[in-house]
């Protein structure tokens, strides 16, 4: 069964296109490296950045090993608190990825359900839901997120907020971007709804919910896949921006954004690595996701023919 599925995948156009596209292969490879490195962070990181007992303030602002004054114990140097930058980046990327993926899952669940209902039922429900989506889209995500998080920080106080930060970030980024999914799904539902198989399903008396989830949804998966990669990249950027503004993850549990923020004031004194290295890690992560998204869009969108 699994072998047959695999054979089907190998024979597909998708795999064929993927094999020929060097950029897509490279992007996919880099994403895999990121995922493996981050989720095995406790195993491969030389230090645990969350453990304050092993941090020595005397080790702060040590440059990377290839620079003068580098310490072989710290591959990429240390940050202002004396944490090993390499370990902190591994853990930080893990937080960024977790927030990005969870936020997009939330977006997808909300957006797909609303899009299905909206497209399938049509009429008043449809125009109401899409009007709400329009209004929500016209506010920029970042703006909404900044305001909501700022208000919550004021309400909860900084200490409680720091403990809840990861949940808040996922909720805010997740809820702010659902219209992207809802619109995409609705558009494909509208075109699928007219086809015979949906009529057939209705004639044999299936419930609308079953028709929506079991029959229509699988046929709308390719546009969902395309926007998902780009949405994860966007979510990671939003998270980094919010953390950079001090509204996201606290410095004690830094994501890439808060790491960049904590190093920013030190670039004037010459300690560029605290900011620039996590910055590069972030840029490469977002870039490969966008490139993979481009590839998926080109392959899965039947309207585009590559010349």
């Amino acid at each position, binding site marked *: 069964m699994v072998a047959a599925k695999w054979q089907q995948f190998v024979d597909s156009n998708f795999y064929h296109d993927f094999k020929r596209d060097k950029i897509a292969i490279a992007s996919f490879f880099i994403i895999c490296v990121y995922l493996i490195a981050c989720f095995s962070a406790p195993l491969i990181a030389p230090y645990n950045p969350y453990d304050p007992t092993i941090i020595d303030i005397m080790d702060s602002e040590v440059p990377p090993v290839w620079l003068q004054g580098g310490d072989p114990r710290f591959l990429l140097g240390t940050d202002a608190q004396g944490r090993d930058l390499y370990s902190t980046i591994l853990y930080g990327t893990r937080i960024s990825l977790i927030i990005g993926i969870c936020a997009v899952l939330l977006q997808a669940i909300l957006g797909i359900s609303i899009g299905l209902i909206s497209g399938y039922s049509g009429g008043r429900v449809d125009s109401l839901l899409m009007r709400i989506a329009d209004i929500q889209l016209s*506010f920029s995500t970042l703006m909404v997120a900044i305001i909501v998080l700022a208000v919550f920080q*004021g309400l909860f106080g900084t200490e409680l907020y720091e403990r809840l930060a990861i949940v808040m970030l996922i909720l805010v980024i997740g809820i702010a971007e659902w219209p992207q999914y809802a619109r995409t799904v609705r558009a494909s539902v509208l075109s699928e709804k007219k086809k015979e198989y949906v009529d057939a399903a209705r004639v044999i008396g299936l419930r609308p919910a079953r028709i929506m989830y079991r029959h229509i949804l699988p046929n709308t998966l390719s546009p969902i896949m395309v926007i998902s990669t780009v949405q994860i990249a966007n979510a990671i950027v939003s998270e980094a921006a919010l953390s950079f503004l001090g509204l996201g993850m606290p410095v004690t549990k830094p994501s890439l954004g808060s790491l960049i923020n904590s190093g*920013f004031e030190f670039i004037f004194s010459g300690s*560029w690595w605290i900011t*620039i290295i996590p*910055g590069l890690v*972030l840029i490469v992560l977002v870039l490969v996701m966008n490139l993979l998204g481009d590839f998926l869009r080109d392959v899965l969108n039947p309207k585009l023919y590559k010349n």
Partner: protein
Amino acid sequence: MVMFIISVIAFSIQDNLGDPLREMVGQSVSEAERQALRQEMGLNDPFFVQYWRFLTKALHGDLGTSYFFKRPAVDVILDKLPATLELVFGASMIIILFSVPVGVFAAINPRHWFSKLSMGMSTVGISIPVFLTAIMSIYIFSVELGWLPSFGRGQTVEILGGWTTGYLTRDGLRHLILPCIALSSIMLPLFIRLIRAEMLEVLESEYVKFAWAKGLSSRRVWFLHALKNTLLPVITVGGVQIGTLIAFTILTETVFQWPGMGFLFLEAVNRVDTPLIIAYLIVVGLIFVITNTIVDLVYGLVNPTVKLARPHGGDD
């Protein structure tokens, strides 16, 4: 409609964010006196009564007094407005000046090396968050090379009615360069891609083929016939992006310590200066609604097929 929602949200924030009494009186006041003061200030009134009072005051331009600056919040915000608007203006200029020529060039010569380069660069550009562009440009041009200043507005000149501008002095202009580039860096790739895609589509359309068949010069076809219809969707997207641009001023202003509204807003958040936060929300909401209306009107002017009087209408 949108303004109404914003005002309700803003008011609920004010209602819930801390106790205004604590800000005004110290710890030494007894509970009975507090209750009396509450009653006197109308804080025990029902929500809608309080909201109505807030709304009438807001319509007269009174959004409360900033706890930190001890001045009316609207005045504090309006003081900072020119700085932010100049930043947005500079960034939009950069976006318009670069995206239109590059996008059109890439559409006309899709196989030219410059087109491929600019498309590749735009993918990279989209992937770099705006605060990183800002940080890296500071690091390269201010810290390493020492060419350009890294924070503040520099020397400004006052022109009519308290509007200070940095565009008229050399120092002010030097301070504007990096923030404007950083702010435009996020939108520029987006617009280049958008203009290229739209232009490619338009060049395939029937009427452009007909214009070629008529034997018009290529300049005329490209810049008169095709470009006009290319710019229609660009205007709509541009209007929608204004909201995003304002959000990004918060990031840019934070990095460059630009004395504008966004920087002020973040400081207000850190100080829990509620009236200032509310005033910022309302001013930004107002800017937002006004620009969207202008974009709608301009769109109606440029594209006669759009009827402004929609049957449902009245959304913004």
